[in-house]
């Protein structure tokens, strides 16, 4: 049990829309768990609520419903005052490194900031540790005296990662950490993250919309659609045995860079429905090619079809959930 770093139960988040009295249902009953040293990938399109989940877990925004257990402690309603010291153990890396760093602080101060907040360190200790951290993320020490505007996107993201690992946290949420970076820069960051996960044994929640990236780094992958986890699947089964119709269509839209891989196109009709008026029943039924009448009224429960592989689809039982056999 102590191995479990984070778990959520029925986590929900609604945002009010102006003063209209209606809500954007960003997250709707999500159960997740991440163990020490594990990387949970979270994939979904825009509006799937993946970023909101990341922020809610860290209590950067308050959940509307459900429970968050971090390191054995229920933090769902913990007041800010008590959350703040816990941030030592839970850190975040944001998507856009250009805007995630205070433009008026020096790189060295930015990396040292979590140390200054959470540890009682002498100045020289702090400087030494900052240099070690910069070296760890392969950032030249020359940059420590510069401001963020002097660095490239990849270098800035390394600064963000150094900040995140500074206090040896137990959980790091990475919200699309490589999406805004160029391909070759992206590869370097992914390599760094891979090394760090082995070294730090921290639990990673890796949020991305790119299936290739997420498969590369995750142990398990949760597929989100309209704020719900529709499938949770071990990494090797994502491409070989996708069982929710949405996962299958997501995979079919994925474009591998190998021109020899033939595409098995399964284009979904229409676009993701508005999270203000969620579809009834299974939220995917409006676009699902194999939806039946009962999908409109019944919310599917998650079935464990093999160890660690959970699928929420009503058509699982009659075997009609596979939309294209040849996808396998």
């Amino acid at each position, binding site marked *: 049990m102590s191995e479990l770093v984070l778990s959520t139960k029925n986590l929900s988040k609604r945002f009010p829309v102006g003063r209209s009295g209606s809500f954007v249902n960003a997250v709707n009953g999500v159960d997740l768990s991440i163990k020490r040293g594990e990387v949970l990938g979270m994939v979904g*399109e*825009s509006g799937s609520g993946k970023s909101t989940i990341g922020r809610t877990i860290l209590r950067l925004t308050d959940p509307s419903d459900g429970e968050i257990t971090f390191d054995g402690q229920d933090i769902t309603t913990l007041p800010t005052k008590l959350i703040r010291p816990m941030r030592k153990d839970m850190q975040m890396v944001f998507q856009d490194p250009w805007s995630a760093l205070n433009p008026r602080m020096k790189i060295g101060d930015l990396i040292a900031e979590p140390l200054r907040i959470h540890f009682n360190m002498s100045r020289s200790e702090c400087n030494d540790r900052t240099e070690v951290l910069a070296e760890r993320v392969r950032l030249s020490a020359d940059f420590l005296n510069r401001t963020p505007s002097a660095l*490239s*996107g990849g270098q800035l993201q390394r600064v963000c990662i150094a900040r995140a690992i500074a206090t040896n946290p137990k959980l790091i949420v990475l919200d699309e950490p490589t999406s805004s970076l*160029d*391909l*070759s*820069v*992206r*590869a*370097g960051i*992914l*390599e760094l993250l*891979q*090394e760090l996960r082995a070294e730090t044994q921290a639990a990673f929640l890796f949020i991305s*919309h*790119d*299936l*290739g*990236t997420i*498969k*590369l*780094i995750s142990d398990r992958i949760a597929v989100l659609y309209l704020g719900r986890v529709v499938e949770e699947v071990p990494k090797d089964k994502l491409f070989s045995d996708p069982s929710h119709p949405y996962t299958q*269509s*997501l995979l*079919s*839209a*994925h*474009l*591998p*860079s*190998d*021109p*020899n891989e033939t*595409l098995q*196109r399964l*284009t*979904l009709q229409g*676009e*993701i429905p508005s999270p203000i008026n969620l579809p009834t029943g299974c939220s995917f039924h409006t676009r699902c090619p194999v939806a039946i009448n009962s999908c409109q009224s019944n919310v599917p429960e998650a079935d464990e079809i093999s160890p660690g592989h959970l699928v929420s689809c009503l058509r699982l039982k009659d075997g009609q959930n596979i939309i294209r056999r040849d996808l396998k």
Partner: protein
Amino acid sequence: MNLLSVQDLQTHFIFRDIDHQLREAKALNKVNLTLNSGQVLGIVGETGAGKSLTAQSICGLLRPPAKIVGGSVTFQGRELLTLSEDEINTIRGAEIAMVVQNPRSSLDPLTQIGAQLVRLHQTHTGGPLAGSRKKALDMMQAVGIPDPEGRFTAWPHELSGGMAQRVLIAMALINEPKLLIADEPTTGLDVTVQAQILDLLNELVARFDMGCMIITHDLGIVAHYCDQVAVMFAGEIVEQGPTREVFLTPAHPYTQQLLAATPERLQLGVKSQLGGQPPDLFNLPTGCLSQDRCTLATEKCGAPPPLIEISKGHLARCHFVKPAEKGRSKSNE
């Protein structure tokens, strides 16, 4: 005759910086491209490689401080770079159309989408209004907008990102252009919507027998939707050729690096040879532009690398590339 032929295109940024000093950045360095009707050409490269600038230079959309300082762009045998602003205006939007990134900001927010389509058709093709209206509805149908009659009076803000991109494609195609330039047409769209848009583009290129240039940083898009590919680095095309050949047997070290960095091929834990900054456009090195980040680089690379034809149509600009057949290499200084 090629539909579009770009020769030795050079675009520089010339401006005075904060210290009043005249600076000149060589953003495009002798770009050569050809494109035929019915063909899809992908231009790939990382941020700052000059992909979009190439498109803007071709379309005459440059504004100061960017300036074309050399080369030629011929479209259907006609030189575009010497045309006056008025002349280019009659071509742009009619014979050459552009689809840009970020569709919503490219639509006039105060005009209904039907009216925008009609206006564009009237500007270039003219004819009776009813004809334009019919054409607009046909186009909306062709790009897969459901209920064109109903959407005719929709406002841009009522459209989703994918729908706005479809409208933009409809606007690009309404005058039946010969050349379509799509600059990151699906960046920012969801993958399932991206698939819809790219399938649509492919289908329309075949149907209207257009030439299409897709500018993207996504190698997956190129692999599956482009016949030809040009890989750009630091304002230069380092390798070009049929997509399958370039992707399966990349010749230039930079192309190899780029392909190795795709998630499918990337192997974590194996130290990759990636990294290094692109060269300073204000102060380009003599010789090979990628020498600073290339693992193969030797003193030899201080000299400008030759453009070597590896097989028919597959060219790479590198000292270490060997031509497939003897006597077919040509250097291009």
